[in-house]
């Protein structure tokens, strides 16, 4: 990203804009839904689906862009993640990818 506006870089403006929209999500629900007693069920369902839908798209390409080491690590992490705390799974996954890559898989 390049190009300055009012003496600040594009990166800075993006971060500030991200801060504004984030603050809106934290205050906006109070402002908007405080007046509505019932959120329409379909809207509620859509809102509930947002986090899983967005985050999935950040994981899924890992299955097609990486090699065998990446796929083995992800599959192992899914199995571990269903049973172990997130932090433990994360650390095991980290060790796995380093080891698998270093032995040339």
């Amino acid at each position: 990203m390049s190009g300055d506006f009012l003496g600040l870089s594009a990166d800075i403006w993006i971060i500030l804009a991200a801060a504004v929209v984030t603050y809106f999500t934290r205050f906006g629900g109070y402002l908007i839904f405080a007046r509505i007693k019932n959120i329409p069920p379909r809207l509620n369902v859509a809102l509930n689906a947002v986090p899983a839908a967005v985050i999935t798209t950040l994981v899924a390409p890992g299955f097609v862009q990486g090699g065998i080491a990446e796929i083995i690590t992800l599959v192992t992490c899914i199995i571990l993640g269903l049973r172990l705390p997130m932090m433990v799974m994360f650390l095991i996954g980290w060790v796995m990818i380093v080891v698998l890559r270093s032995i040339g898989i």
Partner: protein
Amino acid sequence: MNSPWQNYIVGFRESLPAVLSAAPFGLLFGALAIDNGLTPGEALLMSAAVFGGASQMVGIQLFSSNAAAWLIVFSIFAVNFRHILYSASIGRHLGDFTPMQKVLAFFLLVDPIYAASEFRIENRQKIRFSWYLGMGSSMYIFWTVMTGIGALFGSLIRNPEAVGIDFLFPIYFLGLLLGFRKRPNWMPVVIASGLGSIVAYQTVGSPWHVSIGALAGILAAVLLPLQNDPQTDPVPLSGGPEDMG
């Protein structure tokens, strides 16, 4: 009845498990931000101004893939969208707060604080501003400090691939995703988003796979038959370490 200072200390103490869980991710965010081309100052600014772990991770990954500015901002908005439900829910219980206190309180409304607040409401304890500030200020300070430390060390890493740094994102997001698995429609949403994003990734390319895949998942949830869910207050799915904000 406790003094405000005592309430502040209670809130500060209650924040410690969440602070400890989030600390590694603050370090990680700082290190990855550098790896993805941000300066240490920008990384700090992002933690101090956005204050939302998962959305910051998403944001810097899009930064590095040279995504359009609006897409970065929109993705951060999308990841934080659930906070709309938090503030709608918690807002009904902040009657004792002055307007200025609400302005600050909503800025600090990250998952652990939301969860702890709901817990107090459940136990018929009042949410006092001093308690809320104790918990919120603690999380905020530690999050930004950890980001700074991570950024300092991140610039020292010469070959991120050899130490697996480049692959921590997918692992991290996978853990985050599994933390949401109790949510209704989780499996169909994940399958639809996963397939949608992979197809889009192979055809249209990055970073469009994010928005296209996410839309596929949301659409799947909307098209499925409605489940009877009497629960109206959204409850965070994991009070775990995975999500700071």
